[in-house]
């Protein structure tokens, strides 16, 4: 029973925060297979790191750290994975939204985000998630001043990218 208790607790926590993992997978992987692979790898890494989680930070903050770390360095790069993916070849069903205007905008966003580097992708995702700069600092380890500067640059970059699209 001793070994079952943390596993059950872990399962509960993951079920509660599953959406966050899907969001990371959506930003960093573009095909269903890649997303499934990444999802599985993130859950495995979360499970491995779970005994060290002492609740010093929010569970979601801890989860974002593990998920982003796994997405950018914890998975072997396949030819069709992450940066090797051609933005033009993004699958059309990437958004699950049914509003066509919003879907168009999101498609544009995803296509533009794909052109960002791995760190910029993380910053955009956390920004869209309404995370404060302090929380982003806690996840990424960059100073909030640096994050603000980066964020302004990314916004401008996205503006340019979507203008040319």
């Amino acid at each position: 029973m001793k070994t079952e208790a943390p596993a059950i607790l872990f399962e509960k926590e993951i079920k509660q925060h599953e959406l966050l993992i899907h969001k990371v997978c959506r930003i960093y992987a573009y095909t269903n297979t890649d997303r499934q692979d990444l999802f599985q790898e993130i859950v495995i890494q979360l499970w491995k790191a779970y005994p060290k989680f002492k609740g010093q930070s929010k569970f979601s903050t801890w989860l974002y750290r593990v998920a982003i770390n796994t997405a950018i360095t914890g998975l072997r790069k396949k030819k069709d994975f992450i940066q090797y993916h051609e933005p033009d070849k993004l699958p059309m069903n990437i958004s699950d939204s049914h509003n066509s205007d919003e879907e168009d905008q999101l498609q544009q966003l995803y296509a533009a985000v794909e052109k960002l580097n791995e760190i910029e992708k993380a910053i955009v995702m956390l920004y869209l998630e309404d995370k404060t700069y302090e929380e982003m600092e806690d996840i990424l380890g960059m100073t909030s001043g640096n994050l603000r500067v980066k964020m302004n640059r990314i916004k401008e970059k996205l503006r340019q990218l979507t203008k040319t699209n």
Partner: protein
Amino acid sequence: MELDDLKQPWKQSTENIKRSNNNIMELIQNKSYGPIASLKRRFRKQLIILPVVVAILAIQLSRQHDIFSDVLFWCYVVICLLICGYFYFSYRLVSNMQCADCMVKANLEKQIHMLEKGYKWRLIVMRLLFVFFIVLLEVMLYFQQEPSLIKWYAQPLGIRLLGYAGLTALFYVASKLIMNRKYGKHIRYLKELVQQMQ
């Protein structure tokens, strides 16, 4: 398109993501396919395979002659022990390399530090082993001549030294190229990520 205008559609779209029917308990039983887990598996396998190969070799050799008085055999044993130590060191290094729940930047910096440290040590061990082989080859001339090396030992000392020097130079370059091909690309990728965070 303004990023701030997309916060709402982003939230709505992500709320619509179908929750997977993944069984978390089953998922965590699966093998990790990350690069670190793969490296750990490789080193673990090598740590098991090498002593088995040495044992088989020892049994085979002991049938042909008395291996306990064979200098060459003991040299093989020492080299294999050194290689085992090297695999164990690499395994420990890789085990301590990833800190998945650390801040992203700290995790990247840790990985770069560990990989560079490992890279340096692997190069040193590889080169030392090579030099050891060369010295052994020459020393054996005076103690126990291998029948397959008779022609080589018949060469004048100058030619032999020239040959050793050439081989050493070739190995120096090749070892650097091999290590760079194995680890260099990944180290450069990690450094690029840290650069992106500056």
